[in-house]
């Protein structure tokens, strides 16, 4: 069959306008499909888990993230076997400048600076900035991308007006850092938040979540079970999960996203199948006579079948390749604009996504041409030669 490669390509691309339009429609559909697949992969599988991430767990209230736990849990967690360290991991929320402008939204967490870099060793920061963050009561650090976005310089005063917490924080930027997991986030001291809250406010002694570092990746499951068991009968029972699982739980807030993405992908694939099937049918119908000629020359029905399937696969493959390449470019742009939605920051057309999208394109091409190909291969020579279209 490889000897027929040039004939397959020439036949497949014989009608340039139709071929171009078919390839363009395949490319557009596959581009969309590639983006959805990349989104699906990023949301539900993320990028590769770093060694540090594999050790981290998040402990939060069993009921949900809106419920807080006593801050004293932290010390009890630290004392459990298999736990190397733990710190408060408090979502602050609040408003920076104008809440109506979506560009002002970014992740803001109150943490414990003296433990922060041990538990998150992948963070890259200068020694001066690190020391300033650990020692300054109102100090904060931000990702380089975030600082660049707002034009912040070291020493910049950043005001956050609380909504969950009835406080206004006046922070000072101690420096910037890079974090492969997060491109837009700001961290400040939990102590400063606590001190800023009015005496008697119950939030002073509570925490929304704890970030826990296990001794080893093998301990993670056991540690999670032991933490939850430790608070099982308390007024604030906990749920501990790996950092990856915790991130995925945010995706569930969006509803049944898996079903939605699968449904849209299915609709795209089905539409493409119909368009492709129609085009291939037209193309084969126009060439019934040629099929008769080829058979007269000695081409077997199997060869005819293979040639028509091959033509379809060539067109789908070219369209699929262009679509995947376009999706890869668009994903770069979407990744840049993912903001604080950490899951989407790993969104990319990986080799697996590219292979899956290309496989889908070729499969659609093959499935859509099976009918016309089988029909052409079965048509007798005389019927084919008599066919006038």
């Amino acid at each position, binding site marked *: 069959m490889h000897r027929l490669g040039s004939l397959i390509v*020439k036949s497949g691309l014989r009608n340039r306008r139709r071929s171009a339009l078919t390839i363009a429609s395949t490319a557009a559909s596959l581009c969309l499909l590639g983006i959805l697949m990349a989104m699906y992969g990023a949301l539900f599988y993320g990028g590769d888990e770093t060694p540090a991430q594999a050790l981290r767990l998040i402990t939060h209230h069993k009921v949900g993230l809106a419920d807080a736990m006593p801050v004293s849990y932290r010390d009890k967690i630290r004392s459990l076997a298999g736990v190397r360290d733990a710190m408060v991991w408090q979502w602050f929320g609040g408003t920076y400048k104008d809440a109506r402008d979506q560009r002002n939204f970014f992740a803001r967490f109150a943490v414990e600076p003296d433990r922060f870099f041990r538990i998150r060793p992948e963070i890259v920061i200068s020694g001066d900035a690190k020391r300033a963050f650990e020692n300054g009561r109102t100090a904060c650090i931000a990702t380089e991308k975030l600082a660049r976005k707002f034009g912040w310089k070291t020493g910049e005063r950043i005001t956050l007006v609380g909504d969950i917490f009835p406080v206004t924080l006046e922070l000072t930027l101690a420096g910037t850092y890079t974090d492969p997991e997060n491109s837009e986030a700001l961290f400040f001291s939990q102590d400063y938040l606590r001190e800023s809250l009015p005496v008697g406010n119950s939030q002073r002694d509570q925490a929304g979540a704890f970030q826990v570092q296990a001794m080893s990746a093998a301990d993670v499951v056991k540690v999670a079970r032991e933490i939850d068991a430790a608070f099982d009968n308390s007024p604030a029972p906990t749920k501990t999960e790996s950092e990856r699982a915790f991130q995925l739980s945010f995706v569930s807030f969006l509803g049944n996203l898996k079903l939605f993405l699968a449904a849209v992908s299915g609709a795209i694939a089905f539409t493409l199948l119909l368009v492709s099937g129609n085009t291939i049918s037209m193309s084969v119908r126009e060439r019934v006579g040629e099929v008769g000629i080829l058979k007269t020359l000695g081409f077997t*029905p*199997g060869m005819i079948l293979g040639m028509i399937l091959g033509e379809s696969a060539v067109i789908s493959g070219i369209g699929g390749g262009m679509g995947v390449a376009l999706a890869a470019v668009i994903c770069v742009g979407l990744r840049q604009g993912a903001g604080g939605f950490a899951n989407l920051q790993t969104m990319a057309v990986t080799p697996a996504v590219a292979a899956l999208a290309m496989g889908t394109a070729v499969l659609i091409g093959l499935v859509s041409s099976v009918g016309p190909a089988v029909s052409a291969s079965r048509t007798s020579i005389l019927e084919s030669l008599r066919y006038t279209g």
Partner: protein
Amino acid sequence: MSEAVIETTKLTKEFIRDEFHVVALKDADLTVNRGDFVALMGPSGSGKSTLLHLIAAMDRPSSGEIRVLGQDLRALTDRAIAHWRNAHIGFIFQSFNLLPVLSALENVELPLKLTNLKGAERMEHAATALKLVGLGDRLGHYPRQLSGGQEQRVAIARAIVTDPDLILADEPTGNLDAASATDVLTMLARLNKEFGKTIVMVTHDPHAASFATRVRHLEKGLLLPEGQAPEEWNAAAAHPGSEG
């Protein structure tokens, strides 16, 4: 004794078309020996093309026997017939039937793609065949860039490129002007005389038939005995070139 290339005995082809039972060919007994150039003549619907298609194994007989090059065609599967046809038969159509997306050279190379020849060998054979039909300077031309006579010569080159034992031609001059038709017929006669090719040609044109060494007439599905022709054909033969 001459070697029989084609032997048919009581060869019959019937079919149903629009509820009508049609006998396209009835009890045809034909023997064609190696080196013969046989013209099958007859009006439309006489069964001449049906006989040619049965010889080429493009159709299956309803009854009777047919052996071509010693092979009982009824015993072969579709796949085996395709291989057999590629190896032993060269077919020339009335309407040339070249693939428009391929150049003259590529069209002629097409049957060789089914052989074990390597690419360079295939191209060499195809170029030789085109030179033989006088188109050595048109190798890269596409069918749309050729005249009708040139297209038919490419089709002849395609038919002979595998060096087949038998060349079958279905009204090869039907779509050509008189000059081109004579060129093509001269070429077929040359293939028969100089290269010893056995040729069976269907035609309704007495002038075309005059290039053959034997003529067999068909009428209403019956193959007439050798030397026998309907009156009107005898009359037409007296004025060659008056048709087609």
